């Protein structure tokens, strides 16, 4: 026993230490708009600075995607706003105590405010505000001649302009609905006096309007917070605690503006902020373009390769069944055709509750999209076999399986290969959407490029995707040489009998 103990004890120590070292990586998610990505990046860098292994799954999607991913444990942390939590997610009361109680039931913890709020606000033209002494919304009551311009949504929503007017008893008559970007330009040009704004719009930094204080507390608070799972290790919690109250609205606006106007990379902005406030190293590991594209290519090829293999394994047998069984044909072709009509974005979102986020659901969605050309071409290939050849096969006494293997599939092969080729080329394009749910690939730079209005970044994804599509096209021309009998590719000989 004693000897056994001397062996077991060191072993246990080694295992425990090993387990500590193999501590799992913390995943930080963010929504697909700049502010969320910046906060996610900041959280990730602080975790790393605190010695916690962490990765940032940037711009995963909208609120629903992030919330579901957090509940499913696919991510551990993401930045959220209290107003979104109570109005969209939990549909509960908006005070902190109610929110914390509702979240606790789901195993989620809400951090203290990060220091700024991002709700609706009213912005007034700087000169007008100075001249009339406008500092808060109540000040508008005395100036019925002011021209107001609101985003269409704000004008229409029950909790938008109509309720705001009722709460403050605002007298203005000249109120119009218009596009948010146009409203900013109108305000700058002096054709509008007051517009609605988001608390941290990058334009606030650019146009420097006067923000009117919501003195009657009409607008819902959109306090920025971090949501994390209650299983988050103490070391990680400690690292995140440094963000409490750390980011002011002005700083957030400046960071948004740097990302949007100056096209500074998110990681750089977050690193600069962290160095200034927390004295971190501020070093950003920046992969070269070639390396970045290389990594995206691997991700993209995995998406296309695996989904295509799945679609072939599923689609060809379905096509054979459809070609042979009249009654099942309609069902199979109808169903695969119907699935093709589901918008890819909607399909990806449907996949999330079933398969989570990341590569898995993207693969399933890609298989679904690749099915139709494969099934349809398999059916067409078998249908297209000339009647005399069918008769010959029957006359030779070939059984069902032999007929399929020796005659039908080889004859249908050119059509099947063409179907797989079509599916592959489509999959290369569709796989870029996988980035929306965190599957990576060429869609990642495209998504970031669209968000930041950065054409170079969009091309970094779009150009390799187009080249890959061409390569796939060429590859299948070679595949055809390999799997289609030479007898089907030859031109008829001159009759020399």
């Amino acid at each position, binding site marked *: 026993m004693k000897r056994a103990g001397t062996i077991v004890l060191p072993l246990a120590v080694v295992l425990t230490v090993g387990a500590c070292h193999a501590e799992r990586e913390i995943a930080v998610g963010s929504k697909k708009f700049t502010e969320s990505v910046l906060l996610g990046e900041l959280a990730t860098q602080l975790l790393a600075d605190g010695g916690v292994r962490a990765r940032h799954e940037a711009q995963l999607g909208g609120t629903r995607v992030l919330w579901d991913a957090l509940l499913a444990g696919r991510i551990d942390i993401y930045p959220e706003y209290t107003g979104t939590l109570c109005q969209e997610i939990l549909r509960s009361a908006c005070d902190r105590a109610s929110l914390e109680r509702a979240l606790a039931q789901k195993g989620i913890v809400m951090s203290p405010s990060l220091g700024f709020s991002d709700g609706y606000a009213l912005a007034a033209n700087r000169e007008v505000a100075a001249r009339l002494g406008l500092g808060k919304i109540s000040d508008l009551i005395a100036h019925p001649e002011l021209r107001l311009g609101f985003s269409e949504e704000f004008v229409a929503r029950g909790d938008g302009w109509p309720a705001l007017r009722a709460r403050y008893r605002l007298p203005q008559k000249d109120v119009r609905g218009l596009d948010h970007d146009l409203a900013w330009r109108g305000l700058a040009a002096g054709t509008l006096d007051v517009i609605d704004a988001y608390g941290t719009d990058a334009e606030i930094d650019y146009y420097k309007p006067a923000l009117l204080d919501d003195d009657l507390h009409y607008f819902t608070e959109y306090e920025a917070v971090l949501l994390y799972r209650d299983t988050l290790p103490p070391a990680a919690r400690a690292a995140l605690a440094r963000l409490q109250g750390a980011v002011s609205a002005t700083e957030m606006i400046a960071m948004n503006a740097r990302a949007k106007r100056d096209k500074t990379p998110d990681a750089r902005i977050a690193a600069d902020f962290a160095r200034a406030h927390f004295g971190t190293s501020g070093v950003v590991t920046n992969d070269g373009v070639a390396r970045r594209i290389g990594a995206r290519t691997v991700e993209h090829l995995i998406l296309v390769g695996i989904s295509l293999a799945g679609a072939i394994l599923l689609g060809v047998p379905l096509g054979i069944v459809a070609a042979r069984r009249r009654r099942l044909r309609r069902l199979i072709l109808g169903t695969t055709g119907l699935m093709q009509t589901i918008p890819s974005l909607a399909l990806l979102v449907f996949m999330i509750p079933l398969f989570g986020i990341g590569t898995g659901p993207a693969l399933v969605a890609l298989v679904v999209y690749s099915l139709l050309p494969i099934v349809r071409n398999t059916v067409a290939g078998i249908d297209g076999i000339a009647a*005399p050849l069918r008769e*010959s096969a029957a*006359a*030779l006494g070939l059984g069902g399986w032999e007929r399929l293997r020796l*005659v039908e599939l*080889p*004859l249908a092969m050119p059509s099947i290969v063409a179907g797989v080729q079509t599916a592959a080329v489509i999959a290369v394009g569709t796989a870029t959407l996988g980035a929306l749910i965190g599957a990576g690939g060429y869609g990642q730079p495209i998504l970031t490029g669209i968000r930041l209005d950065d054409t170079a970044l969009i091309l970094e994804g779009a150009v390799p995707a187009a080249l890959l599509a061409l390569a796939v096209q060429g590859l299948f021309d070679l595949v055809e040489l390999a799997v289609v*009998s030479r*007898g089907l590719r*030859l031109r008829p000989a001159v009759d020399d009998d």
Partner: protein
Amino acid sequence: MAIYDARMFELRAVRKSWGTQLAVEVDLALPRGRTTVLLGPSGCGKSTLLRLCMGLVAPDAGEIRFDGGPLDRAARRRIGYVIQEGGLFPHLTARQNVALPARGRPHAELDARIGELAELVRLPAELLQRYPVELSGGQRQRVSLMRALMLDPEALLLDEPFGALDPIIRAELQQDLRRIAQRLGKTMVMVTHDLGDAATLGDEIILLRAGRVVQRGPLGELVRAPADPFVTQFIEAQRAPLEKIGA
């Protein structure tokens, strides 16, 4: 009993319609070891009759027997079948087409049999490595004949075997097929609308119209003693080839 034994194919009160259109209505026995030609204009039901004999089409009424037994899958392996244009599989070489009915047999046995058949149908052995598109129409028909004979069947059914060939190659193949038929002594049933085919190959001719037998007998009898004005009309229409063969 001797008469019964002489019957290779028996079609007992067989009827077949396509929709409301009657295709075949016959009561026939086809003799063993002889060549019977099913003759008639397009749409007379002669091809349907042949496919009934092969079991490719099931009759609506009546019964078809082969060699005194039912026409099942085992029986079908004892019947060779050649169609117009050969019906060769384009994705297989000539050799692979010929070997298909005997797949799984040892290589040496296949090679010996294929060599034997190539000699019989006078096909140069080097053509066996070619794909059907690389062969001429006549060569394809010879390969098809080899495939039909691969398992040494007791009966050979031919559906317009010379249909797509030019006259010279047609005549050549007619003679070759006649020689093969005589040498092998097999039961042959051939569908054609060509009086030349019938004259060269047919021991007996069955003239069909609208799915029914109009007259049956040797060609000379059809010429000398037509059972119906239609017989004379059909023969008259093809007078030229008749003269060529000296009838």
